[in-house]
């Protein structure tokens, strides 16, 4: 009796998990060919252990903004490729939100090396927020190198995720509401945080010469 109960419980649980997984990763949108091809990409990504839900999400966004089918498929493929690169770049970080942040950064052409630096600057903490701020700074046209310097420096000096997120949101508001240049706004906001953070240790500064700048890049 106990054996059959146990076996029944396991069977039902496995069946429900399988149904749930299929349901939660099902893409319906665009024409039949697009749906099928995107679904194949999602399933292949899931089989590789990638967070395939991110591809599903992007495909649904694409449908919501009326993207043509072939473009949706192409985007899903690019995203799957970027997820593989992101997974390697930020290991051992493996949270879906960290991978989403790394993948988004790659989509804005942030070099893989920068992702590695951010990952190693915060090896035990989630990096979705620093990566998100990095991505947003780059999306606002702050050069990737300077954006990476700011974010990595904040991490090494013990800035909280709230402070880092605030910097990102403030720069966004400076650009959108104030009409300021993103690079100037980023440097100003970064300098404003400086007094509230620990100084960069000599060892860290020696390892990362680009991080010692507290006033932003020198203008020619």
């Amino acid at each position, binding site marked *: *009796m106990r054996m059959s109960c146990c076996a029944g419980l*396991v069977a*039902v*649980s496995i069946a429900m998990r399988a149904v749930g997984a299929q349901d939660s990763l099902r893409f319906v949108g665009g024409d039949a060919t697009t749906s099928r091809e995107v679904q194949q990409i999602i399933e292949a990504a899931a*089989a590789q252990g990638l967070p395939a839900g991110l591809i599903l999400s*992007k495909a649904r966004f694409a449908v919501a903004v009326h993207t043509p089918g072939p473009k949706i498929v192409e985007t899903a493929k690019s995203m799957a490729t970027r997820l593989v690169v992101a997974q390697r770049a930020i290991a051992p970080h493996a949270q879906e939100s960290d991978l989403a*942040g790394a993948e988004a950064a790659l989509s804005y052409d942030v070099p893989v090396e920068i992702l590695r630096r951010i990952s190693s600057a915060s090896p035990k903490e989630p990096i979705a*927020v620093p990566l998100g701020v990095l991505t947003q700074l780059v999306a606002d046209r702050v050069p990737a190198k300077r954006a990476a310097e700011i974010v990595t420096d904040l991490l090494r000096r013990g800035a909280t995720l709230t402070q880092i997120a605030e910097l990102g949101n403030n720069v*966004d508001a400076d650009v*959108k509401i104030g009409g300021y240049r993103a690079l100037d706004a980023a440097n100003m906001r970064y300098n404003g945080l400086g007094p509230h953070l620990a100084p960069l240790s000599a060892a860290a500064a020696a390892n990362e010469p680009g991080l010692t700048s507290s006033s932003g890049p020198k203008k020619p």
Partner: protein
Amino acid sequence: MRDSRDFREGADPVVRRAIDELRRLPSVEDHVVAKVVSAAATARVLPPADEPPAPVRERRWERIAIGGGIVAAAAIAGFLFRGTVRSPEPVTVAAATSITPASLSAERAVAPIVEQFIFKAPTARHVSVIGDFNRWDASTAPMSRSGDGELWSASIPIVPGRHVYAFMVDDSLLVLDPRAPKTRDPDLGADGSVRIVGRP
């Protein structure tokens, strides 16, 4: 914790399979297991010594009912958690490790934060907030209309990070948040509103 390999030795093949399958399930915290075990022990009622044992036939039906109940409970639990457990991704079974401040803060850093979205749409019949946090699924985050009927609001738990979103008005019109910066998706060339969620 005793290794489940101990139970496998000399066990029936069905039980061995069950053990193998259970080992693949997500880990459960020890204190939760302890609570369940203690509740089960408390609830267990033994018949008085002088009471004659129930007829075999009756007991069999009793066992079938209990078994059915367990299976039904498992089915309901499986249904409820189907969105949260993704079987294609590897599920690591955590060993009994000590909880360090670093792991606690890491856990805290990925815990969702409730974020409020507000949107003005006096003539809309219904509005949803959609974004990467709900996989762009309009059915998951319908907004509620305020008393005066002009503003719509929704509060949604979101994991920290950068999130792109928009409002879906009357199931057909995608509108950006006028209060938020917009960002252009490099793959699609489409705009979305962006919000960076940190810790409160």
